[in-house]
């Protein structure tokens, strides 16, 4: 079966989370992604976690769960000879991706201006904390630190309490997903016109573009409401409530008065819905602390899954709060095709999360994450035309490493 990006090649200089996530989409859908990395300056994610208690450059469970469907070319970009190899690679590629601190690609001789001379219709995406231009372009940062700049941490938190860091190393993967769209928009334009271009993505700006409610409130009313916890301006109750067991919770989102009545009935406190302090959305919002305490007092009496079943039977919006352990047991997740088992060269058969989407007429091609440099020989020889003797010399000179 054909896949949409067969014949498209990506020279992937990206690392950590955002770019690898983006290229996993494209690699799974047919693109040939060639990850350029090295043992001299390896992706630190290769050392975050291991397999069965043993770390190792090819054993990181985190790395393996993100970097599937690609090749690995081990190239020490700090060596001048590496520049020529990278140039040859870009010449036969359609897309280049990178997320080094601003200035590094230029240092490697791999800035867009230079690569454009080699490959005029190249599409290149750079993802950095604050973008390539502006007074603070050279800042260093990961997504989770950068989002503070963008407003996310200030706005996330328990009501009137401290600003928070967000789970899932937010916003790395969200930005990576947006990158997929931007790269494909540029590829679509190239298909139509033959023109490549440079995409300068600021992680912070992407995050702020996902905070329209607070930003628009500021611009319309010069107001900052700060964090509101799990609450919602248009729904009450809208929160996370304790159930039986240690640190066990359910999320409940009640859209209107009728649903609130159904909730109170299901929880065995129908009279609550009739009380003046709770009978209308406006009154529930005004008395939200009391409301949440009353609901919590009831939810505590239920087992999590019993309560979820009960409220779903009344067509209410409810869900168990999942940590990783429970999440992996969810029957709909196990059933939906997103979790795939791959045989990794060192880690063996392991489950990794594939794309969060199902296509009715194509099936992604998932291949296990590469061991460091596992495709160096093939890429240098077959694709770039280096002889075995040249490759051996490059290895001896620690250019290919």
């Amino acid at each position, binding site marked *: 079966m054909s896949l949409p990006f067969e014949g498209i090649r990506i020279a992937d200089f990206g690392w950590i989370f955002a770019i690898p996530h983006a290229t996993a989409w494209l690699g799974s859908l047919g693109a040939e992604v060639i990850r350029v990395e090295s043992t001299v300056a390896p992706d630190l994610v290769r050392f975050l976690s291991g397999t069965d208690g043993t770390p190792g450059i090819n054993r990181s469970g985190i790395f393996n769960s993100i970097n599937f469907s690609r090749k690995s070319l081990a190239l020490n970009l700090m060596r001048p000879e590496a520049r020529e190899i990278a140039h040859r690679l870009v010449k036969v590629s359609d897309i280049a991706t990178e997320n080094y601190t601003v200035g590094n690609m230029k240092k490697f001789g791999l800035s867009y201006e230079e690569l454009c001379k080699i490959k005029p219709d190249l599409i290149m995406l750079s993802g950095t904390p604050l973008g390539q231009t502006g007074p603070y372009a050279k800042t260093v940062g990961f997504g989770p630190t950068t989002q503070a700049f963008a407003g996310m941490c200030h706005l996330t938190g328990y009501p009137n309490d401290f*600003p928070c860091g967000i789970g899932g190393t937010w916003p790395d993967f969200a930005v990576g997903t947006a990158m997929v769209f931007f790269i494909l928009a540029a590829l679509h334009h190239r298909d139509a016109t033959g023109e490549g271009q440079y995409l300068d993505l600021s992680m912070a700006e992407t995050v702020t573009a996902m905070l329209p409610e607070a930003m628009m409130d500021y611009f319309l009313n010069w107001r900052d409401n700060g964090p509101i916890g799990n609450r919602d301006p248009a729904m009450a109750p809208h929160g996370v409530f304790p159930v039986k067991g240690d640190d066990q919770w359910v999320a409940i989102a009640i859209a209107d008065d009728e649903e609130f009545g159904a909730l109170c009935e299901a929880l065995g406190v129908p009279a609550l819905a009739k009380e003046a302090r709770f009978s209308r959305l406006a009154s529930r919002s005004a008395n939200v602390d009391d409301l949440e305490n009353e609901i919590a007092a009831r939810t505590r009496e239920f087992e999590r899954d019993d309560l979820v079943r009960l409220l779903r039977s009344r067509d209410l919006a409810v869900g168990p709060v999942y940590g990783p352990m429970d*999440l992996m047991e969810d029957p709909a997740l196990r059933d939906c095709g997103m979790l795939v088992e791959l045989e990794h060269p060192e880690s063996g058969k392991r489950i990794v999360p594939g794309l969060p989407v199902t*296509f009715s007429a194509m099936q992604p091609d998932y291949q296990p994450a590469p061991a460091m440099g596992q495709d160096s020989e093939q890429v240098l020889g077959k694709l770039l035309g280096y002889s075995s003797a040249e490759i051996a010399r490059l290895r001896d000179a620690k250019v290919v490493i």
Partner: protein
Amino acid sequence: MAGKAFADHGAEVIKIEPPKAGAPERLRGPFKDELPDPETGGLHLYLNTNKLGVTLNLETEKGRDLFFELLGSADILLNPNMPTLNERLGIGWRAMVERFSRLIAVSITTFGAESKYRDVRGGDLIATQMGGVGWETPVNQVTDFATQPPLKPAEHQADYLAGFTAAAAAMCALFQRKRTGKGQHVDTSSWLAMVSMFRPAVGIHSHEAANAPYGVRIRTRAKLGVPWVYPCKDGWVSFSPITDRFWRGTKAAMGNPEWAESELFESLISRATNHDAVEASLIDWLSNENKQEVFKKAQAEHVPCFPVNTPREVAENEQYKARGFFVEHDHPAARVVRMPGAPCMFSRTPWQLRRGAPRLGEHNREILGERLGVSIDELAALKRDGVI
């Protein structure tokens, strides 16, 4: 958000709304001076930039006929309805893909149109809390399980993320159509989009021993390790001091204090093991520092550090200003409006604000009349009958 991504990058996006009520985001605000008006809500003005707006009552046969006529020339359908509603209206994805062989029919729901949970009620909070992101928030700041439940990120991140996911996936299907000539169904889910933000935890779950440090971490929300944000003199900053390089930079930014030379902080492992001591010392230093100053000081030493900015600081910072991130336009109903602009700068085909969010039914005449050939009299009759 999915439609906005396409519209802001040049696609013709026709937003189809129910007559009278309009799309729900129109009623959500934020409104200027708290005065609700479906034409001037902040969320509507932002999410619906560059779109054309028509009204169609899909509960009526005539409304559906016009909808099908629009689909005849459409490449992509973005459909956020629950599957049961689509099936009742006869606009489920199977019927649409069969009837319009080139159409890319995108479902955007909480659980997925083909999920075991397809008929289960959801929404942003449920997707976030079932997707693991809520459980892991706040990161390394939970000191009391009872008063600090799992927390969602600000606003509606699961919904916005579902939008970007659907836009990316629709583009993938569009490229496949270039090869095959055929459309297909693209099933997206805000829940699974959140799960895909959680891939490190999934990878640890499938690879790592339960008693290894990362194996332990995915089993509890308790504060294990350093958080990303710390208090300082006049607010908060984000800070990442843990790797060797960043620790050296942190020490330099602090002026190389004696305590930092302790063997407790010598290596990555020892700093991770003694994270409470690292944190306490860092907070002690930060308590005399202003957030914008410490941002500059730490960055000068190449340490990841940023101020925890408020919306005002986000709106007014020099970096966004220099890049022209916020844009302003004159909207006929809302007058001059500022809003976030390009999330990514394209060198050749830049993000453009070609038109503001449409008024309800603003383009009925242009799209339904001029393009589909509905006469002025018919349009009046359709309006009278509640079809548009």
